[in-house]
């Protein structure tokens, strides 16, 4: 269209283009959303790990601890003994090494004990009662969460003291009893009724509990050691012990007369605990494990520590026959390979030709696993393969109002799994009892988590991982003092600063800075939310995805426009 010849525009340029809707060019839209980090997904207790690490790096230890105990009331315990699966898929590995989450938890747990911090208070009573059978990590965790939901809780513990495996199964050099005791006391202080030396020993007692209480959580652990009958046959009486038996004797001081040479059979944490305890009591210890060192269920660090302490490890091997000799026991052993075609979870050793060897010992200790004793409950709830059948999200069993968790309802044998089970059971019980705010715990998957292609590590400097200091080997063998030392505040600060905070916006401004269209706006009213304070201006965003590519932590992602 041509202009009339004499008309001169009064304004040459308007000085703006923001009347245009360049947003209509868009095929995909950036969306700010909190996403789970791999550590959270891998944590059996669903702990929001990046949140509390961020508070540590800001120096706010108490807030960090409060975030941590939101799901796990025992950080000083798990900071020592957790198998820390949270470090398994940590995205920091792209740079140099995974974040030392376990060390940070240890630091925070001890800091809280040193300062006498109390757990968040119990909620207003909701007028219902729950019985928890078993005062180990699963039961105590369940009691903690139930108190926070306002339920009255009674724990029935067969032994004289609470703690279960924490007190009776883990040696002092890994977890000092006073640490476990203090964390347990904090839970009891929330108003939990405790009946120790009270066993729920038969189906009648169990039926009575179901009558008296609105719900029952069964967390009796796994107390019955598995045996290897072919060893008993060839050895003299009292020459083959099981691990729990041995550790109990140690606590009672009744280990004299067992002889100097000990062979421990097993490849899990319990076997390593026996072997290292025996080293501290002056035994010469050999250890025979079916699995090779790389795949032994015991944690890598504990196996290393055992070797440092002089345990002789025969991995990928088994004992085929035992014979009593004049000088003690003769153990015929053979190297084995595990049948790769065996179903998951089953070990099927295949002897290697020419792999035979002989060990000599005075005593054999087997630590090849334990089974729960569910005779009191088996009439009411279904038992599959020796453990109580429980729903993974609610811990509900086949009997109405009965829930089960920990070692009694699983085979993984990890303290943190038991604590997680207790938590899920508490919310399952609350849902069953019609609690107005309680929702069943939803577990995230690794597919939903921020993966290493979604973090942008350019924005982080290289920083070496901090490791817990260890007591020198010679010192360790003289007693039962803890081996691992807690981080210094400097180490904790440095380690916390290594966290990428995957999936949680920390308002670094990258999305704002790198938008060529100035289509990212800061909305201060949204500050401190897990999605951050940014808003995409629909009118201008062309959907290029630069904000997503430059987000260091995967807190914003693109979604296709479907209309």
């Amino acid at each position, binding site marked *: 269209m041509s202009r009339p010849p004499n008309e001169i*525009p009064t*304004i*040459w*340029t*308007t*000085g*703006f*283009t*923001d*009347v*245009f*809707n*360049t947003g209509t*060019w*868009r095929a995909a839209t950036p969306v700010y959303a909190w996403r789970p980090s791999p550590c959270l997904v891998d944590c059996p207790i669903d702990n929001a790990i990046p949140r509390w690490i961020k508070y540590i790096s800001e120096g706010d230890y108490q807030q960090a601890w409060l975030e941590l105990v939101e799901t796990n009331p025992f950080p000083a315990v798990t900071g020592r003994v957790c198998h820390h699966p949270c470090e398994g898929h940590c995205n920091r590995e*792209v*740079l140099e090494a995974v974040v030392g989450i376990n060390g940070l938890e240890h630091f925070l747990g001890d800091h809280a004990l040193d300062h006498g911090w109390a757990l968040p208070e119990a909620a207003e009573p909701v007028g219902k009662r729950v019985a928890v059978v078993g005062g180990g990590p699963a039961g105590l965790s369940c009691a903690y969460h139930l108190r926070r939901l306002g339920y009255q809780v009674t724990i029935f513990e067969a032994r004289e003291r609470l703690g279960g495996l924490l007190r009776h199964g883990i040696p002092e050099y890994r977890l000092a009893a006073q640490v476990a005791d203090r964390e347990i006391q904090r839970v009891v202080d929330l108003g939990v009724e405790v009946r120790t030396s009270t066993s729920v020993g038969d189906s009648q007692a169990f039926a009575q509990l179901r009558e008296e209480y609105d719900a029952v959580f069964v967390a009796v652990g796994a107390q019955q050691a598995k045996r290897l009958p072919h060893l008993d046959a060839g050895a003299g009486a009292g020459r083959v012990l099981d691990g729990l038996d041995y550790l109990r004797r140690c606590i009672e001081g009744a280990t004299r007369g067992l002889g100097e040479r000990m062979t421990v059979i097993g490849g899990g944490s319990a076997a390593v605990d026996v072997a290292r305890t025996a080293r501290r009591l002056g035994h010469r210890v050999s250890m025979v494990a079916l699995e090779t060192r790389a795949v032994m269920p015991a944690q890598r660090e504990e196996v290393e520590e055992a070797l440092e302490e002089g345990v002789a490890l025969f991995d990928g091997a088994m004992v085929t026959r035992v014979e009593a000799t004049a000088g003690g026991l003769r153990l015929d052993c053979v190297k084995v390979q595990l049948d790769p075609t065996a179903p998951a979870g089953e070990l099927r050793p295949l002897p290697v030709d020419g792999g035979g060897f002989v060990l000599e010992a005075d005593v054999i200790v087997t630590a090849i696993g334990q089974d729960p004793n569910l005779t009191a409950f088996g009439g009411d709830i279904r038992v599959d393969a020796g453990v109580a059948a429980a729903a993974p999200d609610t811990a509900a069993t086949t009997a109405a109002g009965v829930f089960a968790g920990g070692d009694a309802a699983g085979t993984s044998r990890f303290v943190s799994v038991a604590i997680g089970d207790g938590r899920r059971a508490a919310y399952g019980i609350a849902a069953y009892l019609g609690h107005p705010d309680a929702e069943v715990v939803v577990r995230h998957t690794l597919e939903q988590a921020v993966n*290493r*292609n979604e973090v942008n*590590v*350019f*924005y*982080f*400097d*290289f920083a070496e991982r901090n490791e817990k200091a260890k007591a020198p080997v010679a010192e360790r063998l003289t007693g039962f003092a803890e081996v691992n030392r807690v981080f210094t505040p400097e180490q904790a600060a440095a380690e916390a600063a290594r966290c990428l905070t995957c999936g949680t916006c920390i308002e670094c401004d990258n999305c704002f*800075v*790198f*938008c*060529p*269209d*100035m*289509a990212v706006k800061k909305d201060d009213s949204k500050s401190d939310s897990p999605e951050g304070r940014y808003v995409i*201006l629909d*009118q*201008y965003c*062309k*959907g*290029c*995805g*630069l904000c*997503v*590519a*430059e987000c260091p932590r995967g807190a914003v992602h693109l979604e296709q426009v479907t209309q």
Partner: protein
Amino acid sequence: MEPFHAEPNYIIEEAPVFSSGHNACPGCGEALAVRYVLNSMGPKTVAVIPPSCIAIISGPQPYSSMRIPVYQTTLEASAASAAGIRRALVRQGKDDVNVLVIAGDGGTYDIGFQALSGAAERNEDMVYVCLDNEGYMNTGAQKSSSTPYLAYTTSTPGGKPNDKKDIAEIMAAHRVPYVATATVGYPEDLARKVAKAKEMRGLRFIVVLTPCLDGWGVPDDGAVRVSRLAVQTGFFPLYEVEEGERYAINVGPTPGWPVERYLETQRRYRHLTADQVAAIQAHVDHKWSLLHARAKVECVPMFQGAEI
């Protein structure tokens, strides 16, 4: 001279000069550069823009994405136009107005070079920013004298046989008060250099590497990454020169990062043989040794982040 680093903690201060709703492609590296150049210069600025993508981004008439007076001049005359505007401002007694040229590499290295060299020789008072996307990308990706050695353009289908002109060194050789290189992957560094240039007088020249997604063959979300790789692999050093001789290297290459990591992110280098990649690497290494010699310092690399 002390080693000198970019300041990752420099706080960008943006004045709202550049407007949303402009016509740049989604993810355009040049639009990002325009944002930090204009918003760092502030509203008391007159801009001169020759034909280029920048002219497209600043339009379309009668609209303008730039909330300042903009003079769209001819391709060969940016520096001369800016010099004229400055003299007119002086004549009017307006000494608080910045005169800014934003030109492409065609309008700087090639067609506008005579006017620029003359203005530099006279030390005319202006900030001259060259947004360098290494070719005539606006007209369909023909080669310019900024196109790097062996890069594909539509007019060098087998790869450009000649090397890229070193415009920063050419301008430094004019002994103007300030010459700097910058790129959009380091926005704090870019904004700081523009703000620094703004406070100086005489001819201040900044060349900004701005990836062209279409011309280089880079995905929509890749401009910043490619820009950063250009620096991290040493292909495009970030440095400043005052008075033609005081050198400061801002960001050095990340040790052990071959230039191949930069080249492989772009379609325009897809045809390269291993020997050609090695030739480019040797060339980059040689240029760094020259730069070190001029700067009289060993550069301490600052950003060491990995890339996946």
